[in-house]
């Protein structure tokens, strides 16, 4: 399994990961709503570092032979998930900006019309 030394390194990595996220949250550079996925990712990483046997079992469950392959597969899947959710957030924002711009333009015309009177 994972040698003790590597395990300590990994635990430190996960801890600094959380510190960075918390720092961003505190600075209000990240919206908690959009950070949930990242926090979940951190939690999963933490659990897997502490109980690595879990990872092996899940990977076997999917029929994957090599541990590292399995790990990479899950990581990539998770990153795709996060990107997809980002695209959906951007699309929603896009829609909101559009509505705002249109409403602003209509209000602007109304103000001009009123000033003319």
């Amino acid at each position, binding site marked *: 399994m994972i040698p003790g030394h590597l395990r300590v390194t990994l635990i430190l990595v996960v801890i600094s990961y959380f510190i960075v996220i918390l720092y961003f949250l505190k600075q209000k550079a990240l919206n908690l709503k959009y950070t949930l996925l990242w926090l979940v990712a951190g939690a999963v990483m933490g659990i897997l570092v502490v109980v690595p046997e879990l990872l092996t079992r899940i990977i076997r469950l999917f029929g994957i032979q090599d541990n590292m392959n399995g790990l990479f597969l899950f990581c990539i899947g998770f990153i795709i998930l996060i990107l997809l959710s980002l695209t959906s957030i951007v699309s929603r924002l896009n829609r909101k*900006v*559009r509505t705002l*711009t*249109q*409403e*602003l*333009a*209509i209000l*602007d*015309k109304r103000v001009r019309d009123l000033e003319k009177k």
Partner: protein
Amino acid sequence: MEEKKKILIIIPAYNESDNIVHVVKDMIEQAPQYDYLVVNDGSTDRTLAICEQEGFQYLDLSINMGIGGAVQAGYIYAYKNKYDIAVQMDGDGQHDVTYLEKLLEPIMTDEADVVIGSRFLEREGFQTSASRRAGINILSGLIRLTTGKRIKDVTSGYRAVNRMFIEIYSKDYPMDYPEPEAIVSAIMHLGRVQEVPVQMRAREGGVSSITFKKSIYYMFKVTLAILLCRLSYGVRRGKRV
């Protein structure tokens, strides 16, 4: 029943400083009975300044949103100001004001909900390039395949809609390259879509929004959009009287 209908001509304009004066003045001279509204789509040239100077009726979108967003702004304005009929007409001088009456007639007589001015019904006037016609035919075929309705000039931006579709379009209008998709959306809303023959001119100044490089992307995106639009409305429910 002879009450006067409130009619708004929506003229989306993106960097049309070469054409806009001519288009709007034509409009005011030849069709003074209708209201018009220029929608400046965040132009980077003097379009806005010209509209101000000339005292045109205009909406000024502070961000460029593409033709879909601009036209939709016009529909929202028409909806809020209780217009009965809205016409959209390009700001580049391609569309001839003299065909307005013909475009409006099927809506006035309540024969149609959406009327499209078509270059290809009588094949007169500017017919655009062969490659574009081929593209238009493919999209037209696709729309026929997915909705059963034959519309020839699916990319024409010269259209009139009644109050029902002013409301529908003000709430949901396709973005980017909206014309073909808006037809599918109209058919799926059980709208009566009709084409009337018009003649168009070759554009007088400025550049078309669709360059050759973009045309592949255009076909791809619009094809997907049509299929998606068709799918998201599912099986058509009954017939509208």
